[in-house]
């Protein structure tokens, strides 16, 4: 029996269960609730909630919405406030206008960002937290930062302790 995976099936499964895509010609107005990762390459206006999953605004994506997600990656344009449980990644050429509440933020050189950044502690499972207060989000004193991205970021990343 071969151990080589059946790639077409694997790819299909990954697409079907792991990542929904709104293509370049898609225009959505209203509320999006997603229980899987979502990539937007088209236009979305409204609200997006996917607190356990990752939102990717692709290079062609134009999103005008408030966003709540576990993780947000912006390569295109996003106007609206963003709240992430884990991290937001604003890539080169991306444009983000809005306020951000997140545990970690990565901004690549060449990205444009206008707005407020409020770093909050990532929620700690109750069993792992020493005190109840540790579980509630609040401004961090040892926040957030990058692990990857452009060389210019690496210097900043070196300063960070989590």
């Amino acid at each position, binding site marked *: 029996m071969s151990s080589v995976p059946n790639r077409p099936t694997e790819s299909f499964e990954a697409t079907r269960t792991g990542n929904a895509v709104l293509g370049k010609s898609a225009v959505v107005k209203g509320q999006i609730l997603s229980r899987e990762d979502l990539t937007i390459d088209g236009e979305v206006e409204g609200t997006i909630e996917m607190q356990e999953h990752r939102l990717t605004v692709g290079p062609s994506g134009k999103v005008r919405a408030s966003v709540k997600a576990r993780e947000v990656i912006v390569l295109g344009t996003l106007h609206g406030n963003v709240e992430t449980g884990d991290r937001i990644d604003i890539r080169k050429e991306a444009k983000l206008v809005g306020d951000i509440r997140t545990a970690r933020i990565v901004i690549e050189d060449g*990205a444009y960002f206008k707005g407020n950044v409020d770093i909050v502690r990532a929620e700690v499972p109750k069993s792992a937290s020493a005190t109840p207060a540790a579980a509630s989000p609040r*401004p961090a004193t040892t926040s957030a930062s990058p692990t990857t991205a452009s060389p210019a970021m690496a210097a900043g990343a070196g300063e*960070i302790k989590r």
Partner: protein
Amino acid sequence: METRNSSGLDQFCSLLVERPGLTLLDLAGANQSTMAFLTNLGHRVYSDDFLLQMDRCFGDGDFYENQADPQKAAQFLDAALDYPAQHFDGALVWDTLEFLSGPLLETVVQRLGTMLRPGSYMLALFHAEERAETIPTYSYRIQDRKTITLAPRGRRRPAQFFNNRSLEKLFSDFDSVKFFLTRDHLREVIVRR
């Protein structure tokens, strides 16, 4: 990219270390190192690229003539400095004020003063080369409380040259102005609201 020591930044940071949870304005354009430095100290950061906003509003045609156009000036103020009064505990304006002329410069400084809470600091940089036709512009990035990285952004013609006296006049409505001597051609100024 070059780095430089900054006594002005050190002074600015003395406020940040004493009191966590401040709201700060950074007009250098969002960058990772400044964002990480300030948020690691427990502060909120409002970020915008002031020079880019200027280019968007005044870049089509003569940069300084356009600044005298009341409609364009109003559009710029709405785009770049539309914040509530006494919203910030500190502002990093870097060298951006050098590229504003005449009445708009005074309006911007006045508005910055309005946006800052009493007792807060603003850090501004001014080139000291009196005869230079153009001066280098940078994206200023904080590495630590005494060190700035300067990422080049080309050269620009400054609106005017500032000496100590003209800077004192510019910030006359502020509580105090403190100058820091540097070995290079940048004059560092800390203004207290």
